[in-house]
């Protein structure tokens, strides 16, 4: 067997050729033994004597490299066998055997080299030969094993272990669901919305008041909003919808869309609610997907199709998807509220939706007996009253003569402000009296002060007499900012009204949970064609005859 160049590693670096490799020159070095490694490779050095210093360093480097690779391979095999790097049991056994065989070979080589070194080598070439320290080899081996174990090993090698597991931990989301009830109609659930995103565009219409006349009580509806979810809603909003409709034909993902079909009935708005102008941006939403199309032509209220610039659908939009005109509600001509002619009288044009502009809308909260006027003539008033017309009857009128005192009346469907003029009318007989206090929606008793005969005679009044609040109607006649058209233009999504909690009449809290889980809030919504307070003939509102205003109103809660 030829003799290999000695492989020597010192503690500070692998492959160094510093002069301190001589034991004499570096006695304090942590060198334990010099070894010679027998080799079987073809490139073994055959010169027994000292070699040239440069060649010796090259050879030493080669053999260091070979030695390190062998050690690494051996360590890898050992780590793989010990750990879970190899899934196959057979492979693990083979790896372990190879590691053991290699280790035995190295031990044998080390042993032989040790003996030969002691006999001949050390004295003859102390400067050129590099001895391999066993302790260094073991340390390098351990280091490599450690590195390999770090990256390739898994599991613990401890013999004794302890372990616990927390299984079945869960994370469940809560819910925000809204129930919307108009008067005694069936509950409308947000979760049942056809657009599949907890938005229900098909709740009961608030009212359908027909054959109305200016300055006369029309009626109101009561809306109850409940958070039927498990989470508190930090915010609750009221806003006017965009011009909108409900998709009646599914749009498949990738389809080339040139028009949007809308349901004519039964799914929310009857066709298009509002007006779409050419170039308007139409947002189609279904589930978590939405896409904006651009109208290529205008569409009139009630239309069941809107043509759009050709565009490939980026998702599938099922029937029931909502379609909203994001460019609507900018003027009286393109609001969600729109007018139609019931009868063409020649002079009752629908241009700019005059009845929408001539009808005052009011939304007053009555939750828990606390009133707050959120929208309408009187909005934000200190007593919480909207100017909401009344039309009620007294249970009786003593002696048929209207006089100061208290009257039991049918429950008010509006408000009376202290000092307002109340008119008792029985045919041509009309008597007015001032209200002695504020009276709210639902009140069944009112007190009036000294009365004045207006026309006819103060006699013959009975339970069919009609009591109205003429002051309220006068205030409504002067209000030009709370008609339906203005509601659409100034209380749309961008300017939505947050319905913060009401803690007393006319008092709302700036912060807090707007609608807690399972909580409800109640609102009275009404509309009246405003009388004109102008003097005749300027007060003529003939152009409002035989028109119908159609509109929507949105309630919304957020987490």
């Amino acid at each position, binding site marked *: 067997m030829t003799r290999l160049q000695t492989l020597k590693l010192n503690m500070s670096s692998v492959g160094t050729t510093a002069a301190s490799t001589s034991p004499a020159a570096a006695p304090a070095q942590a060198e334990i033994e010099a070894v010679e490694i027998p080799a079987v490779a073809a490139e073994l050095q055959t010169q027994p004597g000292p070699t040239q210093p440069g060649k010796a360093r090259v050879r030493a480097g080669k053999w260091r490299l070979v030695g390190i690779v062998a050690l690494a391979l051996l360590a890898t095999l050992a780590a793989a066998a010990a750990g879970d790097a190899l899934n196959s049991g057979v492979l693990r056994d083979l790896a372990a055997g190879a590691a053991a065989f290699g280790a035995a070979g190295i031990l044998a080589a080390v042993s032989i080299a040790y003996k030969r070194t002691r006999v001949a080598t050390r004295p003859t070439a102390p400067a050129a030969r590099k001895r391999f320290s066993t302790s260094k080899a073991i340390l390098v081996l351990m280091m490599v094993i450690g590195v390999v174990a770090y990256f390739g090993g898994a599991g613990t090698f401890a013999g004794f272990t302890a372990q616990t597991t927390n299984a079945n931990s869960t994370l469940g989301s809560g819910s925000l669901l809204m129930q919307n009830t108009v008067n005694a109609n069936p509950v409308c659930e947000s979760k049942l919305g056809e657009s599949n995103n907890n938005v229900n565009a098909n709740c009961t219409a608030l009212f359908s008041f027909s054959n109305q006349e200016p300055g006369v009580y029309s009626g109101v509806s009561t809306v109850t909003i409940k958070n039927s979810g498990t989470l508190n809603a930090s915010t609750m909003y009221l806003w006017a919808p965009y011009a909108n409709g409900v998709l009646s034909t599914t749009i498949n993902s990738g389809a080339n869309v040139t028009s949007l079909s809308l349901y004519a009935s039964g799914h929310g708005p009857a066709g298009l609610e509002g007006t779409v102008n050419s170039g308007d941006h139409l947002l189609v939403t279904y589930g978590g997907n939405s896409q904006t199309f651009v109208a290529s032509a205008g569409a009139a209220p009630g239309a069941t199709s809107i043509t759009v610039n050709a565009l490939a659908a980026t998702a599938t939009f099922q029937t029931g998807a909502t379609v909203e005109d994001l460019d609507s509600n900018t003027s009286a001509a393109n609001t969600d509220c729109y007018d139609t002619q019931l009868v063409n009288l020649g*002079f009752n044009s629908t241009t700019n939706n005059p009845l929408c502009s001539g009808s005052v809308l009011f939304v007053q909260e009555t939750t828990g007996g606390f009133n707050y006027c959120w929208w309408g003539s009187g909005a934000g008033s200190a007593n919480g009253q909207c100017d909401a017309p009344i039309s009620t009857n007294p249970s009786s009128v003593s002696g048929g003569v209207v006089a100061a005192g208290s009257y039991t009346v049918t429950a008010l469907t509006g408000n009376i402000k202290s000092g307002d003029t109340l008119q008792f009318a029985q045919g041509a007989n009309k008597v007015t009296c001032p209200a002695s206090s504020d009276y709210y929606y639902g009140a069944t008793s009112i007190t009036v002060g000294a009365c004045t005969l207006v026309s006819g005679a103060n006699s013959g009044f009975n339970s069919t007499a009609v009591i109205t609040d003429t002051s309220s109607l006068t205030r409504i006649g002067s209000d030009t900012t709370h008609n339906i058209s203005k509601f659409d233009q100034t209380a749309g999504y961008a300017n939505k009204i947050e319905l913060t909690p009401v803690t007393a009449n006319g008092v709302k809290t700036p912060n807090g949970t707007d609608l807690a889980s399972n909580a409800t809030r109640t609102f009275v919504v009404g509309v009246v064609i405003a009388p004109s307070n102008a003097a005749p003939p300027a007060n003529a509102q*003939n152009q409002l005859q035989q028109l119908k205003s159609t509109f929507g109103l949105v309630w*919304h809660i957020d987490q």
Partner: protein
Amino acid sequence: MSSRTIKKLLLSLIVVGVLASFTARGTFAVLNGSTNHPGSSISSGSILMANSVGGGSNCYSDLTAANKNVNSSCTQLFSTGLLYPITTSSPPTPPQTTVAYADMTISSAGLPLAGGNPTSSTLPATLMVAMPNCDASNTTGAGFTGGTNPCCPGDAFGAGVLPGSVANCPTGSLDFFIQEYTSSAFTTPTSSCLYPVQASACTFQSDTLGNFFGNYHDTTHYLSLGTIAAGATRYFRIGVAEPIDASNNLQGETATLSLYWHMEQ
């Protein structure tokens, strides 16, 4: 921390900020619910009027769109000459030459749609009447003119002269009445007289034209004729006569008058 690391961190923050500026919009709420009330509506009603004289064609308030339900071009009531003082206050049965009659039909209805019947109003209304003008003039060709204003004896002659008040119209005017009838046959008057107001059927009474003109001569001073139901029709006879006690001062004078019929909610 090296300056290079600090630079990287700052650059990262800038990138995050730029991304946020492009991607963050609207609300950050994740869960929400929403409901909409579409199709809420309010509809207005209508008050329309048709007016016919002597069984003639209807004159509709909504004939001209630009006038917005006001028609000022309906048929004249009468054009009677050669009247002379009546001998009894009881209205004579027409046809008559000694008095002027106009049988009026007032309907709460508008123009027919597509050749059908007149379009009925949908709202009840109060029917009112006024006399916006009664102009006195000397009768053309009369050999003698008495010089008394037959409309309002205290006022001057001429077109457009309105009495400041009824006090301007002392005695001496023509007789005038408004009698309602139960049907278009104009045979059965209602039990009372609308003007001059009395519990029995109308009779010719002195000074009544001056009193009516003095009291009801503009659009804020109407005589109420009571309610007219949506789509209903009412029948009125307008009578004018030389009073029984007419003086010669009414000879050779002409009264040119108009009536406004007005319906109001």
